[in-house]
C-alpha cells in the first residue's frame, strides 16, 4: 500500500482513527489555514472590463477639450449623470503592423493582448484581464467572473490561451446559482460551520492530481500544455475549497440577494438590457461579498448581434448597410445601438457608484475599462478606439477626465491598467505597439 502512504489524504487531518467528521477535526485545519483577510484590512481592489460591439461615430462620441469637465458629444450624453466617475481615453490606435485588419477581431485583440493577430481567430493570449486576475484573483473563490448579456456563452474575450476561453454566464439565474448557491459562505453569518464534505471533495481532486504523472509522460508538448490547463483549473477549485474551510471575514457591504426568476436570454436589445441589469446587480453583490475581484462583462460581442424587436436588421448589419443620412451625417438606426450601449454602461457605473462600501462606494475600490473593437464600425476602423475607465481604484486614479491619445498605441492603456492593479511591469505590447509609457494623467 505504498501508493496510499504517498497520498496526502485529507491532508493528514482525517487519516488515522477518525470515526466521524466533527468540528474538533477542523480546528487544527483552520489553525494551519488562517490566512484570510482580517477584519479591518483595506477593502479589496477590483478590476473589470465592459465590452460593447461595433464602436461609435468618432465625431459624435469623442470629446475635444482634454482634462476634467470635458464636453459630452451626442453619443456620450448617456453618461452625463456619471461623468465625474468616467475618464474618456480617445485617439488611442491599434497598429496592425502589417497584419490584416480582421474585421471585428483585430481591434479587440490590440486592446487586450497588445499584439496584432496574424490570422482572424488568433488570440495572442493571455488577455489583459487574465494578467490582472493572476495578481488580484487568487484570494477569492472565483478568479474572475465572465458574463454576456446577449445570451451566448461564447461571447467572452477572457482567454488564458488560444484555446482556453472562460465561457460567459448568460442567464442571471445560473450566475446567481454559481455565486450564491452551494459553496457560498455568507461572510456575515453569525456562526461558521464548515461543510464536512469539503474535505472529502478535496480528497477526490487530490487523487486526480496524483494520476497526472503517468499521463504526462505519454503526451507530446501540445497535449501537455492542455493537461497544464486542466491542472490550473483543478488548482483553482482546490483553492476555492480551501477558502470554504475557513470563516470568511465579515463584510458590511455584503447582503446575499434573492435568486432572480428564470428568464429568457437573447440578443434583442430590450432583453439584453434587462439581463445586463439583472447580472449587474448580482455582480456587484459578488464583488461586495468578495467572491471575485475581477469581472468581464460583454454587453454585446464584436460585430454586435443586438437588434430591435421587430426589426429586420441588427446592429452589425446596419453599420455596413445603412446609408449615412446626408442631413444627419451618420447612420441613425445603427447609432441607436451606440446610444443604448452607452446607457447600459452608464447604468453599471451608476450602480457601482451607488453601492456603499466602507467609507465610500464599490466604485471607489474598482477600476472598470469599457471598450469596443472598432471606432467607426462601417469601415472596421481600429484607429482611435473608444475606451473609458470608471472608478478610483482605491484612490490610485483621478476619474472624470478626458485624455487624448493622439494616435499613440492602445497598449498604453493596457500597460497603465496593469500598473494600477499592482503588476510590476514596465513595458507591454509587441512590435510597434510595444510601449513603456503609462498614461500619467490619470494617476492620482
Amino acid at each position: 500500500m505504498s501508493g496510499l502512504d504517498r497520498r496526502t489524504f485529507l491532508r493528514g487531518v482525517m487519516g488515522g482513527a477518525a470515526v466521524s467528521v466533527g468540528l474538533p477535526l477542523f480546528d487544527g485545519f483552520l489553525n494551519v489555514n488562517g490566512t484570510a483577510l482580517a477584519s479591518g484590512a483595506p477593502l479589496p481592489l477590483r478590476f473589470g472590463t465592459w465590452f460593447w460591439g461595433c464602436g461609435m461615430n468618432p465625431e459624435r462620441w469623442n470629446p475635444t477639450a482634454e482634462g476634467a469637465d470635458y464636453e459630452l458629444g451626442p453619443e456620450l450624453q448617456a453618461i452625463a449623470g456619471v461623468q465625474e466617475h468616467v475618464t474618456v481615453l480617445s485617439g488611442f490606435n491599434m497598429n496592425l503592423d502589417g497584419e490584416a485588419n480582421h474585421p471585428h477581431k483585430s481591434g479587440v485583440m490590440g486592446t487586450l493582448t497588445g499584439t496584432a493577430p496574424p490570422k482572424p481567430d488568433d488570440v495572442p493570449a493571455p488577455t489583459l484581464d487574465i494578467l490582472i486576475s493572476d495578481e488580484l484573483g487568487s484570494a477569492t473563490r472565483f478568479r474572475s467572473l465572465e458574463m454576456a448579456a446577449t445570451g451566448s456563452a461564447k461571447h467572452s474575450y477572457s482567454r488564458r490561451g488560444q484555446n482556453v476561453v472562460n465561457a460567459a454566464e448568460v442567464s442571471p439565474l445560473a450566475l446567481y446559482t454559481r455565486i450564491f448557491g452551494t459553496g457560498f459562505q455568507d461572510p456575515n453569518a453569525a456562526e461558521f460551520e464548515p461543510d464536512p464534505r469539503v474535505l472529502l471533495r478535496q480528497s477526490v481532486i487530490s487523487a486526480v492530481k496524483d494520476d497526472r504523472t503517468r499521463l504526462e509522460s505519454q503526451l507530446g508538448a501540445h497535449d501537455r500544455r492542455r493537461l497544464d490547463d486542466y491542472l490550473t483549473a483543478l488548482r483553482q477549485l482546490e483553492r476555492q475549497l480551501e477558502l470554504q474551510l475557513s470563516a470568511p471575514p465579515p463584510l458590511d457591504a455584503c447582503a446575499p440577494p434573492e435568486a432572480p426568476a428564470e428568464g429568457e436570454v437573447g440578443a434583442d436589445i430590450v432583453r439584453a438590457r434587462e439581463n445586463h441589469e439583472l447580472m449587474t446587480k448580482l455582480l456587484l453583490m459578488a464583488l461586495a461579498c468578495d467572491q471575485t475581484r475581477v469581472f468581464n462583462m460583454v454587453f454585446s460581442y464584436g460585430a454586435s448581434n443586438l437588434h430591435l424587436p421587430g426589426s429586420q436588421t441588427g446592429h452589425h448589419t446596419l453599420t455596413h448597410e445603412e446609408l449615412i443620412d446626408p442631413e444627419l451625417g451618420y447612420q441613425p438606426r445603427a447609432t441607436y445601438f451606440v446610444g443604448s450601449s452607452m446607457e447600459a454602461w452608464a447604468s453599471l457605473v451608476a450602480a457601482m457608484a451607488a453601492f456603499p462600501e466602507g467609507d465610500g462606494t464599490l466604485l471607489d475600490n474598482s477600476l472598470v475599462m469599457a471598450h469596443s473593437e472598432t471606432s467607426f464600425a462601417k469601415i472596421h476602423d481600429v484607429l482611435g478606439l473608444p475606451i473609458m475607465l470608471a472608478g478610483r481604484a482605491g484612490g490610485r486614479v483621478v476619474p472624470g477626465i478626458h485624455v487624448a491619445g493622439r494616435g499613440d498605441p492602445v497598449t498604453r492603456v493596457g500597460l497603465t491598467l496593469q500598473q494600477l492593479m499592482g503588476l510590476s511591469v514596465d513595458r507591454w505590447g509587441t512590435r510597434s505597439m510595444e510601449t513603456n509609457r503609462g498614461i500619467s494623467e490619470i494617476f492620482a
Partner: protein
Amino acid sequence: MGGPLAMRRLTAEQYKRAVADVFGADIKVAGRFEPDARRDGLVAVGGSWSTTTPSSFEQSESRALSIAAQVVDETHRAQFVACEPPPAGEADDACAAEFVRGIGRQLFRRPLTEEEVEARVAIAANTTRATADFHAGLQFALASLLLAPEFLFRVEQGEPDPTDPQHMLLTSGSVASRLSYFLWNTTPDEELLAATEGGQLLSDEALGAQVDRLLASPRLEEGMRAFFADVYSFDDFEDVSKDTILYPAFSRTLLEDAQEQTLRVIIDHLISQRGDFRDLFTTRKSFMTRTLGLVYGVPVATRDGWEPFEFPEGSLRSGIYTHASLMALHSHPGRSSPTMRGIFVREAIMCQPVSAAPADVTFSVVQETDNVEFKTGRERLLAHQTDKACAKCHKVMDPIGLGLDNFDAIGAYRATENGVPIDTSGDVSGEEFSDTRDLGRVLHDHPAVPACLVENLYRYAVGRDTALSERRLLRYLEGRFEESGYRLHDLLRLIAMSDGFRTASERRAVETQPEDEV
C-alpha cells in the same frame, strides 16, 4: 501515413452518452458544459485542441458528484455494487476495488492501473470511516474517476509496429475508442473492450468483425446523427434567434423539429434505405410535424409527432440543403443571407473554403449608391460585386445563396421580396441553374460533393485535419466510394479499416498546426 495521436476532449453529447451507457439513461447529467470548439469546420477536430477552464472544471466537479450520488443511491446501487455493505463505519477494500475496476474500465476505456485503483479505494475507505457510510465512500471514489482527465479526454496511445518499428500503430484500445466514437459516438461497449485484450484488434480480421458489428447495430444511427450535426454546425442552433414580430411561426420547437427533420431524412436515406449519398441533394422525401407544416405550408394530419411526407414533383424543396433547418441557421435574425448560405454550401457541402473578407475591406461601395433602397438580396449584393476586392469572394458565395433566396430567414417559401420577384438563377463554377431544382442536380453531380463527405468523415474519425501524405488515401477512398454507388456503410468501413485510421505519427509537438496539414 497517419497523423499525430490525439487527446480529444469529450463533447457534451459524448459525455452524456457515456454516462447513459455505463450507468443507465435515468441518471441525470446536470450543469453547463464548456462550449464545444470548432476547428477547420469540425467540433471533432476542435476537440483535439480544446482544454479546461476553471469555470468548466467547477461544473465538472459538481456534475461528477451528482452522477456518483445517483449511481450509489438506493435505487441504483444493486446494479453496480456486488457486495453487501459492511457494518456501519467499516470499509471493504475488496468490494470497493471491484467496483472501481469494473466501472473504471468502462469510463477510461481501458483497464485501470493498480495505482489508479488504489487511490480510489483509499478515498472510499477514508470517506467511509469519516461518514460511516460505505456507499458515500463509493460515491466519492467514483466522482474522482469521472473527474479524471482520462475520462474527460480520450487519450490515444501508440506503439511501434512489430513488423516495421519505424511506424507507429494505434494500440488495440485506442483503435476501439476511435471506432466506437466514430460509428456510435459513445464509449466502447463490453464486447469491443473485450476484443481489445491482448492487442487482438490490431488484426484485420478482428477489426473487420467489430466494424461490421458496429455498422449493423441500430446505434450507428446515433453516431451518424452526431457526424452530420457536427459537419452542418447544428450546435450553432443554440445561438439562433429570429424576430418573432417578423416571423410569428418561429419558436424553439420549430428549430428543434427542423433539425430533427434534416437528420431524419439523412438517416432514413443513408442508413435505412442505404441510398446513394448524392441523392440527399435532390430528394423530395421528408418527414413533417405540425409545427414544421406551418413553415412549409403543408397540412399535417398527425397531431403530435412525425409523419412521412413527400414534396410534390417540381417542388423547389429538392434536397436537404433547402430544409428550414439550414435556411434558418444561415440567415440573419430578420432576413435571409445569400452570402451565409453560399458559404455554407461551399464550405460544408463542397469543402471549398471561402477566404475571409480582405484586410482592406471598406464596405464603402454600399455607401455610394445614391440613396437607392435595395429591394432584394440580389440588388444589395450586386453592390458588393462592383468592387473588385469584394467581388472575388462574393462571386463564389453569392450565386448559390441567391439560388436559395426563395426561402426566408426561417425557411418559408416566398416568391417576392419587398414586392419584387426573386431571381434565383446563377451558376456553380460554370454550371448554370435557374432555381433549387437545378441547383440540387448540380450539387448531386458535382465531384466535390462526395469528395467532401469523404474528407469530412475521415477528419471526424481521426480528430485532426488531413496531412499532405494522406492525399492518396483520400483519392483512394473517393474512388471506392464511387464504386460502391456512394453508399455510406461502405465508406465507413473503408475508413475504419484504412491505415490512416489505425496508424499514427509522433505526438503533436507544438500548439499550432504543422505546415504540412492541408
